[in-house]
C-alpha cells in the first residue's frame, strides 16, 4: 500500500523510496505541463509497484495513461511525443522487459537528437524498476547497467535512498537529454528522510561512509549492503570507504580517482554478471586513474556469468555480505611482487 507523506516539524519528510519517487513524479507533473507519464498499468492501477499511485486521478488521463502491452510501442511513442515537444516519462514494468524495446531505445531515443542535429531533443526519462532481491519470476530481476552505459546518447542514474531518489528523478526529468532511471526495487519500501528543498550535490558520486583502507564502489541496491559490510569490517578495525556512484553515465571519474588514490584499494560491487559488466569499466578507469597508487588489483564482486536465477537461488547470485568481505580480504591481503 502506498503511504502518505508525513511531514515533520522541519521540511524533512520520512518517505520510502516508493513515496519519494511518487512524489517526484507528482511535483514534476505539477511544474511542467508538457510532462507525460505512461506505460503498462501506470494509470488506473498506479503501477505494479504503486510508483504512479494517484497521478492519473490528479493530472487526468491525458497526462498519465495506460498503454497497450508493448514495450517497443511505449518507447517509440515517447520518441514521437518528444518530437512534438512533450516530455515523456514512461515506465517499463520490469528491467527484463526493456529488451523488447531495445531497438527503439538504442536506435531512436539515443540517436534522434544526433540524427536531427539537435532539431529533436529527446528529454525522455525512462523509469526502469531494476536489479533483483525480491525473488521475482524470470526477467523481473535483471541489472542492465552495461547495456545502457555503452549506448552513446543515453545518461544513466540510479539512487540508493529516498532523498536521492526524489532529487535525482526530478533532475533527470528536467534534463534535455534521455536518462535511464534505474530504480532499485529491493529498496522501494525502505524509509529515509527526504528534504524536497535541499537538492545540493547530486551531480556525481558521493561518499556515503568515509574510510581509509579500501573503497567499496557501488550504486543503487548494493549501497546499503556495502554499508553493512563497512560496519562489520569496522569491528575488525578495517575502515572501508563506501562510494555511491549514483551516475553511471557520466561516471564521476574525479571522485573515483580521489577516493581510490587515497585508500589504495578498490572493490567494485554490482549485481550484474561479471563479464563486460559495469564493473569492467570502473575497474578499467580506476586501473588507469590510480595506476601509481593502487596497492592491489581492483576486485570485482558481482553476479556470476549466469542468467539471474530463480528466487530460491537469488541469494547465491547477488553479492552477499560474505562475498563482499571475501573481496575486501583479497584486496587487503594482496602483496605486490
Amino acid at each position: 500500500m502506498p503511504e502518505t507523506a508525513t511531514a515533520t516539524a522541519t521540511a524533512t519528510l520520512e518517505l520510502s523510496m516508493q513515496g519519494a519517487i511518487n512524489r517526484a513524479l507528482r511535483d514534476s507533473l505539477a511544474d511542467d505541463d508538457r510532462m507525460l507519464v505512461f506505460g503498462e498499468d501506470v494509470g488506473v492501477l498506479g503501477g505494479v509497484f504503486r510508483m504512479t499511485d494517484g497521478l492519473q486521478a490528479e493530472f487526468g488521463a491525458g497526462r498519465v495513461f495506460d498503454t497497450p502491452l508493448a514495450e517497443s510501442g511505449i518507447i517509440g511513442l515517447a520518441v514521437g511525443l518528444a518530437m512534438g515537444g512533450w516530455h515523456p516519462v514512461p515506465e517499463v514494468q520490469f528491467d527484463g522487459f526493456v529488451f523488447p524495446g531495445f531497438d527503439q531505445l538504442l536506435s531512436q531515443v539515443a540517436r534522434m537528437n544526433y540524427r536531427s542535429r539537435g532539431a529533436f531533443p529527446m528529454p525522455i526519462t525512462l523509469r526502469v524498476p531494476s536489479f533483483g532481491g525480491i525473488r521475482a519470476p524470470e526477467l523481473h530481476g535483471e541489472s542492465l547497467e552495461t547495456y545502457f552505459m555503452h549506448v552513446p546518447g543515453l545518461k544513466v542514474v540510479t539512487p540508493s535512498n529516498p532523498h536521492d531518489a526524489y532529487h535525482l528523478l526530478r533532475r533527470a526529468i528536467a534534463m534535455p537529454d534521455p536518462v535511464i532511471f534505474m530504480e532499485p526495487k529491493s529498496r522501494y519500501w525502505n524509509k529515509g528522510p527526504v528534504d524536497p528543498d535541499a537538492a545540493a550535490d547530486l551531480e556525481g558520486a558521493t561518499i556515503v561512509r568515509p574510510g581509509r583502507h579500501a573503497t567499496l564502489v557501488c550504486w543503487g541496491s548494493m549501497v546499503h549492503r556495502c554499508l553493512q559490510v563497512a560496519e562489520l569490517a569496522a569491528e575488525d578495525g578495517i575502515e572501508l570507504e563506501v562510494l555511491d556512484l549514483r551516475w553511471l553515465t557520466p561516471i564521476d571519474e574525479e571522485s573515483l580517482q580521489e577516493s581510490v588514490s587515497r585508500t589504495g584499494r578498490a572493490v567494485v560491487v554490482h549485481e550484474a554478471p561479471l563479464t563486460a559488466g559495469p564493473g569492467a569499466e570502473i575497474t578499467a578507469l580506476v586501473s588507469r586513474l590510480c595506476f601509481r597508487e593502487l596497492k592491489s588489483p581492483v576486485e570485482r564482486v558481482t553476479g556470476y556469468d549466469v542468467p539471474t536465477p530463480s528466487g530460491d537461488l537469488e541469494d547465491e547470485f547477488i553479492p552477499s555480505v560474505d562475498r563482499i568481505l571475501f573481496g575486501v580480504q583479497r584486496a587487503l591481503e594482496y602483496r605486490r611482487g
Partner: protein
Amino acid sequence: MSDADDELLRRSYEHMHFARTLDNGLVTWQRQGLVPAYPPARGQEAAQVGSALALDRSKDFVFPTYREIGVAVAWGVDLVGYLGSHLGLWHGGLWDAARDRFAPLQAVVGAGPLHAVGWALGQKLDGLDGVALSYFGDGASSQGDVHEAMNFASVMSAPVVFFVQNNRWALSVPLARQVGGESVAARAAGYGMTGTVVDGDDPIAVYRATHDAVELARSTGRPSLVEAMTYRRGPHATSDDPGRYRSLEDERAAGVDPLERLEGVLRASGLADDAWFAALVEAEAPRLEALRATLVEPAPMPGDQMFEHVFQSPTPQITRQRAQWREESEHA
C-alpha cells in the same frame, strides 16, 4: 450427443475441477507462505482444458505462458515439476519439457508464439504432422512478436494454432484499451488465415474449435487462430488487488462460472449425479495432499545448479566462478 461427447464432458469436468482445486490450493498456500507468488487461472478452466484435449499427446506440442495450469493438468504434465516455477525453484519449471512436449513457462509476454512457429515449421521440414499450440492472452496480442509470429506462420505455412485466451484483462488494462478493434480473431483475416471466436467457458465448444484448427494445420499445414472468450475471475496474481481497477459489476458481467455451468450440463443430461461428483472430489484429495506435501518441504535447489545449465559446454570462466562460489559458500 454421442458417447464420445459424453466422455469428453466428463473428462473435461474432471480436469477443470482438479485445476480449480489446485488453483485454489495455490492461492491458499501462497497466503500461508508456502508459495512465493501465483497467477490464478480461475475462470479459464474450460478454455484451457477444452483446447488441451483437442491435441494429440503423441505428436503435438504445447507452448504455454505462465497461467496454463488447466492445460498442464489436462495434458498430464508432472505437476510437482510444474509447480517448481511458482515455488521459485527454477524459472522454467522442473518437469522434462522435451519429453512432456510442453515448453518451459514463458515469462516474456508475447515471446512464445514465434517458438511455436519455429517448432511447427520444423515438423513440416521433417515431413511430420505434429501441430504446435501457442497459448497467449489478449494483452500479449499487442506485442510485435505476436504479429511477426502470425505473419511468419502464414507466409511459411507452419502448422500452428494460435490460441488466445481473451480473459478481458491484461493485468489492470481492459480489452478496450488493449486491442484496437477489440477482437484478436478479427486480426487473423489480415494474415490470410482463419480466425474463430468461441465461447471460452464452454469446454466442448472450445474443444471443437481447437480440434478443427488442429486438423486444418495437420492436413494442410495452414495456421489459424482461435479466440476463446472468457474472463479472468481472480486477480492477475496473488500480489494484485483487482479492486483498484475493476468493479464487482465488471466481474459479474462475466456470467456464470464455467465449472458451475458444466456441472449443470452434466446433471441436466444425466451424465453425472451427486455420487459421481462426490467421488471426484474424494479422488482429488490425496492428489492435492501429495502436492501440498512437496511444497511444505521442497527439495532445496543446490546453488551449483545456477552454473550447470548456462551452456552445454561450459566456458573456463563459468567453471572458475563455480569453484569460487563453492569455496566461498563453504567458508562463509
